[in-house]
């Protein structure tokens, strides 16, 4: 934590991979300053190419969304609501001196590293694996770019590059800096975050921290503070928790994400019915009309 110096979980060396400890991120928008250092650090460390030089016109966010070449993405949410017990002054956007409440929230979005991961289940090559620390990793040398993980992620995180890189697979997403973690380093985004809005640590610690933070915020008037950690759906919880102010929809997060494998049973049953129907139809056609 801030003030702990190099003893902070974001800074000190660890042996989570060796000890097979489940790790997690906790991203807290209430202390994020929108500096995008996480985006930059991620790009630099992982050598991620540019994601297009386009202007979205959406607040100060020209990144747009997570994708094959965007593994951290700072959202700039603008809402006509009050932020906690915020005092709205003369700089509000109200008409004719009205004090319209207005809040500006920054949140660094990232791969959720689901407990039950849609991409991992969908991958036909076994390229996507679960690591010792519970994160979900794409092995680029195995990935053949079939694109099925892209439509299987309930959070729209993983994507295929339009043109494959030489000697690299088709699908890309956040690696949870597995290479850094193996060497006892913290992920680049957490390491660089100047306000510790991104906290890295043991999943249990991070969960506890998130709960405590929500309590603190609620006590100080942030009534709509909540943790985004879909444990009650088939996703079964995530390794990158978020603190949200207000509804998940405003952050482009699905309110009730489900892993697509829950649809398999009904769909394969329908396929079996179709196959049986075809056999019966062909049998009948040739038995009675030949």
């Amino acid at each position, binding site marked *: 934590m801030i003030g702990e110096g190099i003893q902070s979980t974001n800074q000190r060396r660890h042996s989570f991979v060796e000890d097979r400890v489940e790790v997690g991120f906790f991203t807290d928008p209430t202390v994020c300053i929108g500096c995008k250092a996480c985006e930059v650090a991620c790009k630099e460390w992982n050598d991620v190419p540019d994601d297009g030089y386009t202007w979205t016109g959406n607040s100060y966010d020209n990144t747009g969304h997570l994708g094959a070449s965007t593994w951290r993405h700072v959202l700039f949410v603008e809402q006509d609501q009050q932020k906690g017990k915020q005092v709205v002054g003369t700089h509000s956007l109200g008409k004719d001196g009205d004090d319209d409440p207005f809040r500006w929230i920054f949140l660094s979005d990232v791969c959720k590293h689901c407990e039950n991961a849609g991409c991992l289940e969908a991958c036909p090559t076994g390229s996507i694996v679960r690591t010792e620390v519970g994160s979900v990793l794409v092995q680029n040398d195995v990935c053949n770019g079939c694109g099925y993980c*892209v439509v299987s992620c309930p959070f729209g995180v993983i994507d295929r590059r339009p043109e494959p890189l030489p000697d690299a697979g088709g699908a890309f997403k956040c690696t949870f800096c597995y290479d850094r973690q193996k060497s006892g380093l913290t992920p680049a985004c957490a390491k660089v975050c100047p306000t510790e809005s991104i906290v890295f640590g043991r999943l249990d610690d991070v969960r506890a921290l998130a709960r405590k933070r929500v309590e603190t915020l609620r006590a100080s008037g942030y009534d709509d503070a909540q943790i985004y950690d879909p444990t009650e759906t088939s996703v079964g919880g995530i390794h990158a928790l978020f603190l949200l102010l207000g509804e998940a929809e405003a952050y*482009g997060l699905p309110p009730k994400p489900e892993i697509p494998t829950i649809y398999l049973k009904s769909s*394969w049953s329908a396929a079996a019915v179709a196959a049986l129907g075809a056999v019966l139809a062909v049998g009948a056609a040739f038995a009675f009309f030949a």
Partner: protein
Amino acid sequence: MNADRNFEDRLDSLRKGAKHGGAVTGRGVDISGGPIPRLPGYYGEAVVKPPVWTWEIPLYFFLGGASGMAPLIAVAALLVRQIELARGALWIMAAGALLSPVLLIMDLGRPMLFLNMLRVFKHRSPMSVGAWILSAFSSFAVPACLIFELYLRDAFAPSIATLVLILCGLLCFGAALFGLGLATYTGVLLGATAIPAWFLHRTLLPIHFGTAGLGCAAAILELLGFQTRPLFVLGMLAAIVEALLWIWLEIDKHGAADRALHRGGSGWLIRAGEILSGPLSIIFRLTNLVPLAAISFLLGALCSRFGWIAAGRVSGRDPEAVFASQR
């Protein structure tokens, strides 16, 4: 600078629009209380990712469907001794068995690595199951067609001819079995995803794709000149089922969640497909215009495959569809 000039022009047009109309169109400055209606979710950005597949995949669905159902017709034809019909069906099967992997490999981000699909079998991944089904189907279908053709040309000595025929029959049976999977798994492939328009219709899709596959196999055979009664009956049955599926799709609406299936280009592509292979095909058959019915069915099946992929793309980009499907 040219770019700066463009930005200034855009800003001017935004100011003008806001001043005159009280609202501006297109992308611009999204301020709370500003003149632009706020978009759903996070500036209307997609919540899930739309499919990255291009034209190869719907075409593969179409070919795989027709060639997957062909060996079933071939086996039935062999059992009732319609040798020429069986021969035609086996050729359709073999052609599809050779072309399908090509289309699938063309779409891969790294085509050289198709074989990576065969390093594991994951029963919970329809893509993995499908890759194995296609591989098995092709390895049964191509030898079956070759052996049958050689047998018809008396290439085998009489002493082993019966044995060869039995082997060929077994291969055909295997191809028919995996062909059933090939024609229907594609529906599961779309159904078990995070795309609202697809997973909401996960039971309709395999039935639709399987029926279309069977109807297409019969239609191609009819166009090749086998206008026999069993094929007519099969074509009619497939068209009736397609018409019923169209009605099901029109009744089973989920509002914003699956509007991509009913509105816009993707909606019309699906509707055109269902009309062509359903009601129109039935009418042509009732008026005894069999070739027209066959063409209509084939066109419909092709339209519908492209329509479903297009709908997935629209639905995946639509944040409201995702939110609506989870409420």
